[in-house]
């Protein structure tokens, strides 16, 4: 049987598997060969489970031969290393968890496994999902397949780079402030952050629990819909997971978007936005208009306030969540601690990287008795105002459209960027996290050879409509099917 191209979509692979034009075993072996060839440069994958993947592929082929049918059966994929995988190291790209092997699967991992997907291994990421460049990983930076001197974005940078480089047609990601959408934009792939509560967080290592959400990163909206069908749904093991039905996200993809009202917030086209990116996103919006959508000017005046709000709340929640890493029950422990306090102090100081420690410090400060009302309580109040602003706008329009990120991929180790410059990378994505809304990034063109993403934000649990619009956009454009030239890529 002829091997499929590395940049096939899940939908295409599923058809080929159904028609017996290829086996799952062949897909897995091809992916492993490709990972072993390209990963020494890209550094997108930090754990590869070759034996497990081949065994699972053989099982999938056997199941298919016995009549099993599933659109995801036998399709290889990768997990962000934030999801607990039973028996496979789950490091969160931190020295703290360098040797952590979970005895259980995250619900997302279990659901995709139950749907027949084959996990090849785990993707690199910013440490504990804190970063927008994937440079904070303990295992080193990930390189952008479109230009290996540039970042892939973050924190799901390994997942985005892996899909963009054709290492797999799907990778899972998580998004607390833009960590699926921004790397999807910078790597030229499609990434969906579902509504808060749409997908279980059980077994997903916590960063900021009131905003963390898992989602699919793939080549197309059609593939994201297929995967969300399997990922979404109530989970009694996550008390914040919504107990509402899961629609068939694939069913409405072909609906016309004629007459849909798409709001364009003027604040998303502010001075933060690079000119070339603005031009590409405006052209993409025109494409939606030519498909019949009605474009409406709107305003989200609190857009910039979102940065201040997010960077109080997320570090505060992180400082609480990461207090569990004390060197006692699991995770890194320092050598020869003199007493218990020394064990805590040195294990945490040596086990966490600089960005994680920076955020723990800020979070500890804003949660302290003297600062709580001024910072943490205040940020939670402003969060409500921001959420209400989105809800109000979404009464007048069906979805909001704009850029996913203010810039294209920036160069690695760019010391000219201050901490707060880096935080501004999230200025257009953070609002959806604060308000709990679903949002998707789709490829919308290139500036100087680097991908640009258009973001669509919808009402709570409005994933089906976002996927419909994104799919219709991708029926009219081919930005999502362009691939980087990786020939001759060696270290």
């Amino acid at each position, binding site marked *: 049987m002829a091997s499929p191209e590395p940049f096939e979509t899940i939908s295409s692979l599923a058809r080929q598997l159904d028609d017996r034009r290829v086996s799952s075993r062949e897909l897995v072996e091809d992916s492993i060969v490709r990972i072993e060839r390209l990963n020494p440069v890209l550094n997108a994958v930090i754990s590869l489970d070759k034996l497990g993947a081949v065994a699972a592929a053989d099982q999938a082929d056997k199941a298919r031969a016995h009549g099993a049918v599933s659109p995801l059966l036998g399709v290889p994929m990768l997990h962000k290393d934030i999801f607990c995988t039973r028996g496979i190291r789950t490091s969160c790209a931190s020295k703290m968890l360098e040797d952590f092997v979970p*005895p259980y699967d995250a619900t997302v991992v279990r659901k995709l496994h139950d749907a027949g997907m084959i996990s090849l291994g785990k993707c690199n990421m910013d440490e504990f999902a804190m970063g927008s460049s994937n440079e904070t990983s303990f295992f080193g930076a990930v390189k952008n397949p479109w230009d290996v001197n540039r970042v892939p974005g973050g924190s799901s940078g390994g997942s985005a780079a892996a899909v963009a480089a054709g290492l797999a047609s799907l990778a899972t990601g998580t998004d607390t402030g833009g960590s699926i959408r921004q790397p999807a934009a910078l790597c030229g792939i499609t990434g969906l952050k579902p509504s808060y*509560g749409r997908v279980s967080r059980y077994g997903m290592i916590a960063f900021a629990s009131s905003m963390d959400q898992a989602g699919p990163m793939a080549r197309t909206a059609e593939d994201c819909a297929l995967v969300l069908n399997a990922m979404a749904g109530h989970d009694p093991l996550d008390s914040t997971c919504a*107990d509402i039905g899961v629609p068939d996200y694939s069913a409405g993809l072909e609906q016309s978007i004629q007459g849909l009202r798409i709001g364009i917030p003027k604040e998303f086209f502010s001075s933060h936005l690079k000119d070339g990116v603005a031009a590409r996103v405006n052209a993409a919006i025109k494409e939606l208009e030519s498909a019949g959508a009605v474009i409406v000017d709107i305003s989200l005046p609190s857009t910039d306030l979102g940065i201040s709000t997010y960077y109080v709340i997320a570090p505060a929640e992180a400082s609480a969540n990461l207090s569990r890493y004390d060197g006692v*029950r*699991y995770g890194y422990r320092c050598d020869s601690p003199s007493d218990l306090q020394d064990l805590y102090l040195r294990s945490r100081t040596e086990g966490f990287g600089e960005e994680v420690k920076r955020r723990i410090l800020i979070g500890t400060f804003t949660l302290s008795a003297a600062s709580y009302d001024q910072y943490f*309580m205040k940020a939670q109040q402003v969060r*409500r105002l921001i959420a209400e602003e989105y809800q109000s706008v979404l009464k007048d329009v069906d979805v909001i459209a704009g850029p996913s990120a203010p810039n294209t991929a920036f160069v690695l180790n760019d010391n000219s960027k201050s*901490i*707060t410059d880096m935080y501004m990378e999230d200025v257009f994505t953070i609002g959806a996290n604060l308000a709990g809304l679903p949002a998707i990034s789709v490829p919308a063109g290139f500036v100087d050879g680097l991908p640009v993403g258009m973001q669509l934000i919808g009402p709570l649990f409005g994933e089906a409509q976002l996927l419909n619009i994104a799919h219709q956009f991708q029926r009219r454009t081919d930005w999502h099917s362009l691939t980087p030239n990786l020939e001759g890529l060696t270290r």
Partner: protein
Amino acid sequence: MTDAATVREVAALARLTISDQDIENATTEFNQALALFDALGTVDTAEVAPMINPLNTAQRLRTDCIDTLVDRTGLMQNAPAIEEDYFLVPRVVD
């Protein structure tokens, strides 16, 4: 503005240490972050309830019954030091 002593105090609360070499930089970055938060002070939130969860729902509770989600042996295998069924730490009481 927050001074180095306060940053060290916060670090101690967070069970982290900052070396003498790093304290100046850490204090500068700390103040950069706090400056970013100043914008919050300009917003009138007198009548606004804090938003803790974007779904605005109370957390559900499971039935209070014993259930085994994860095997104990698997969990203990990740411990840096154990003896029988216990985690080992340095002596606390002499």
